[in-house]
């Protein structure tokens, strides 16, 4: 099978072409403002470098950190209103209560509590009030907001109220992007609502980004299937991704960690993926990212996705370096893809981390003469600050005193001066494009989430049935039957329901069949 993996970062777009398990070629191109130019460039470069035709490629997998970066940097986020169906319950904690204040301000802190919501057993807390919702819609319209997240108490048990409220909002606000929390998350009102709000504020951006991918692939003559990678390292088709950009959160880190394991052959390590805007740090166990057991924060916001235990810091090759009375500040703002015009070494006027590294003689990039004027003391202090940030994040990712190796991947690896926190440093081949490799090797999943009445069948029979259904779903989604593994089994009894009802979730993954 010939596949292309693409990873679009805030700074670089990486692409690899793989033939089976062999990396034939890997390239980097700067991410462009319109996304598409950079993707087309990377696709053309990787096809040229590998000597293959676009028509010979079976499938394209795309990982993008666009959406995570947008939240982390508080950029390109649409003003968003959250409507929670709940009254009189939940008044003690309004939507976005535990968000970082700056992110809440960017979205406008627009929230409304309305009547509605369900009890755990499906009874209603209070009836949906259409007039109330139309009044809220009028306020949303008056504030010029076009993105709406709707949450409702116990919507994973009964999503009817969210759906009805969504219809009322769509009718009152033609053209608005509406996200229902029940489409995204699990039990846990605040976390599910957080994810829905973030999804809503990204919908303008997602339409733009997915459309850009579609035309980029067409431009290079690829007419086959393309997928986006989601946060569990598996694939979703483009139309789905456009509606649910939030599911791509942390897919970049998952891809780079899986790619790092694949390329280095090291199965247990700390992985630091340094991009242009952020560094993602996580721990690799047996070749897979360690899964978070508790709520995962994205840009400082709690969510309850099942996600790799990875965190991002605002440090990359394009991070701004600002000297001030309080010392040198590095990041979290970054010039991102504009590094090729804005960094000093490329003739721009913004001091970035890459300028510091080049000025220190530690990397060849751009025009070193343009940074020869930098004060050596400033260079030293900036490098010390970078080293401190790296050491701090590696230490945070360490969960034991065991001296695990640190695998450094990503285009921003030039920022590393030597061993981090005294640990062995591994720089694998193709390290700069590890995330594109991770995207290319992403798998296909099938999931089942349904309620069984154990009065009618044994638990074993129910689990076997769910496993068979998940396997069938994975095959239907394009997985090869002989590669399928059951990776997740969960059964939770539902309280107070007759017939000893239990909710079973099973996930199966396998290699993409071509």
């Amino acid at each position: 099978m010939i596949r292309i993996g693409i990873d679009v970062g805030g700074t670089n777009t990486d692409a690899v072409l793989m033939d089976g398990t062999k990396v034939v070629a890997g390239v980097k191109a700067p991410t462009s403002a319109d996304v598409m130019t950079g993707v087309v460039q990377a696709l053309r470069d990787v096809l040229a470098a590998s000597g293959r035709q676009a028509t010979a490629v079976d499938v394209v997998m795309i990982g993008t950190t666009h959406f995570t970066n947008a939240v982390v940097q508080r950029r390109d986020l649409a003003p968003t209103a959250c409507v929670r169906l709940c009254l009189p319950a939940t008044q003690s904690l309004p939507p976005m209560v535990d968000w970082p204040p700056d992110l809440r301000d960017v979205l406008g802190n627009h929230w409304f509590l309305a009547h509605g919501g369900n009890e755990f057993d499906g009874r209603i807390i209070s009836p949906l009030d259409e007039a109330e919702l139309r009044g809220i819609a009028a306020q949303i319209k008056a504030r010029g907001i076009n993105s709406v997240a709707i949450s409702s108490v116990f919507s994973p048990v009964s999503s009817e109220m969210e759906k009805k409220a969504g219809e009322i909002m769509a009718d009152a606000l033609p053209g608005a992007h509406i996200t229902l929390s029940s489409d995204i998350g699990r039990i846990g009102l605040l976390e599910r609502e957080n994810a829905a709000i973030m999804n809503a504020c990204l919908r303008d951006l997602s339409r733009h980004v997915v459309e850009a991918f579609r035309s980029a692939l067409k431009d290079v003559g690829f007419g086959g299937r393309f997928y986006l990678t989601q946060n569990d390292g598996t694939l979703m088709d483009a139309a789905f991704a456009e509606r649910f950009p939030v599911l791509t959160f942390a897919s970049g880190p998952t891809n780079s960690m899986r790619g790092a394991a694949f390329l280095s052959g090291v199965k247990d390590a700390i992985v630091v993926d340094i991009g242009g805007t952020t560094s993602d740090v996580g721990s690799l166990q047996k070749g897979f990212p360690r899964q978070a057991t508790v709520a995962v924060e994205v840009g400082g916001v709690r969510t309850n996705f099942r996600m790799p235990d990875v965190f991002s810091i605002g440090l990359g090759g394009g991070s701004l370096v600002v000297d001030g009375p309080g010392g040198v500040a590095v990041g979290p703002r970054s010039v991102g893809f504009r590094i090729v015009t804005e960094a000093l070494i490329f003739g721009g006027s913004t001091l970035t981390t890459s300028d510091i590294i080049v000025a220190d003689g530690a990397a060849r990039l751009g025009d070193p003469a343009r940074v020869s004027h930098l004060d050596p003391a400033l260079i030293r202090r900036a490098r010390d600050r970078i080293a401190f940030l790296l050491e701090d994040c590696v230490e945070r990712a360490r969960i034991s005193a065991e001296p695990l190796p640190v695998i450094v991947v990503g285009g921003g690896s030039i920022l590393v001066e030597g061993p981090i926190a005294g640990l062995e440093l591994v720089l694998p081949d193709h390290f700069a494009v590890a995330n594109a490799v991770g995207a290319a090797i992403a798998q296909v999943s099938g999931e089942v989430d349904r309620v069984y009445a154990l009065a009618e069948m044994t638990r074993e029979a129910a689990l076997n049935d769910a496993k068979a259904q998940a396997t069938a779903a994975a095959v239907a989604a394009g997985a090869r039957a002989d590669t399928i593994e059951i990776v997740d089994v969960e059964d939770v009894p539902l309280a107070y329901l007759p017939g000893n009802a239990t909710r079973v979730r099973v996930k199966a993954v396998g290699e993409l069949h071509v």
Partner: protein
Amino acid sequence: MSDAWPLTEADLLPLSIGAALLGTGGGGNPYIGMLRARELIRKGAVVNVLPLGALPDEAWVGEVGGIGAPVVGIEKIEEGGECYRALRAVEDTLGVRTSALISAEIGGANSIEPVIAAALAGLPVLDGDGMGRAFPEVQMTTFFIYGAEAAPAAIADDKGNVVVFRDVKDMYWLERFARDTSVAMGAGAGLAITPMRADFVRRAAVPETLTQALTIGRTVLDARAKRHDVVDRICRDTGARLFFTGKVTDVRRHLQGGFARGEAQIAGTGEWHGAQARIAIQNENLVLWVDGRAVIMVPDLIVNLDLDTGEPITTEILRYGMRLATIGLPAHDLLKTPEAMAVVGPACFGYPDLTFTPLAA
């Protein structure tokens, strides 16, 4: 009141971490309660913590807590005044005003519920509770074990309903009525028990458990900040002992009488490689068997921690593949008397064949 100290916003995180650990797998997640208390403190509420001995003998102490299913607590968040309304209802019924509040249950979400009601009522909270851990039922407190009255009690929901139990034969009847009413109220409600005299509370409460929860939470945060092995630090600094490490190979759950009961199988790793452990669950962890031998049993505390991060693992999120460290903490002596055994001993949880063998303190 010279020993009083105000609970600050900075105390809330360690308190919630310590309370989650003392929840022994249950008790509900204190995160929501922590946020609610934080909102109130940020708006200017002051809650002082008093030692058990600080009040005069004849002062009244109120006991409040949430009642319902933990999963409801993270979904149908409180309107806010549930426990406060229940408190005012029992005070009115008894014709007294309370001088302080105390937690029924330091383990889990109910560690913070009295703090919230105290903030609304302008009262202090006492440094102690009725369990020193979490238990699934209302009667399982040292207050009831040592003779607190079962009535009047009151339960309040999010909608403004307040139900007062005026005459109740005993604490088991109260559990039954309160449980059924809470289910009717959506499996999440605020319960206030009859106010108790301060001299009784001084004798019957498990002392200094708010401080204990804070100490555990601060130890965890300190260990994380210093990159220490969190499980190791908890064992070294808080009197806990490591009993097993392993990987969960199966979790089966079923419902019995409205409670989530179940069992987890764990395959040993590290020092316990080759050994098999089994943990019985009823909301909380009840019994730990290693290779068929019961090594820790209720009322002693059995706590599962994430092997790597030291994060307490609740029985609801316990799932296949998790890597655990199982630690034990001895229960307070008030929970080990013959009177206590009749209410919270292994037999009360469906293990009549187990004779309680306490952990060494």
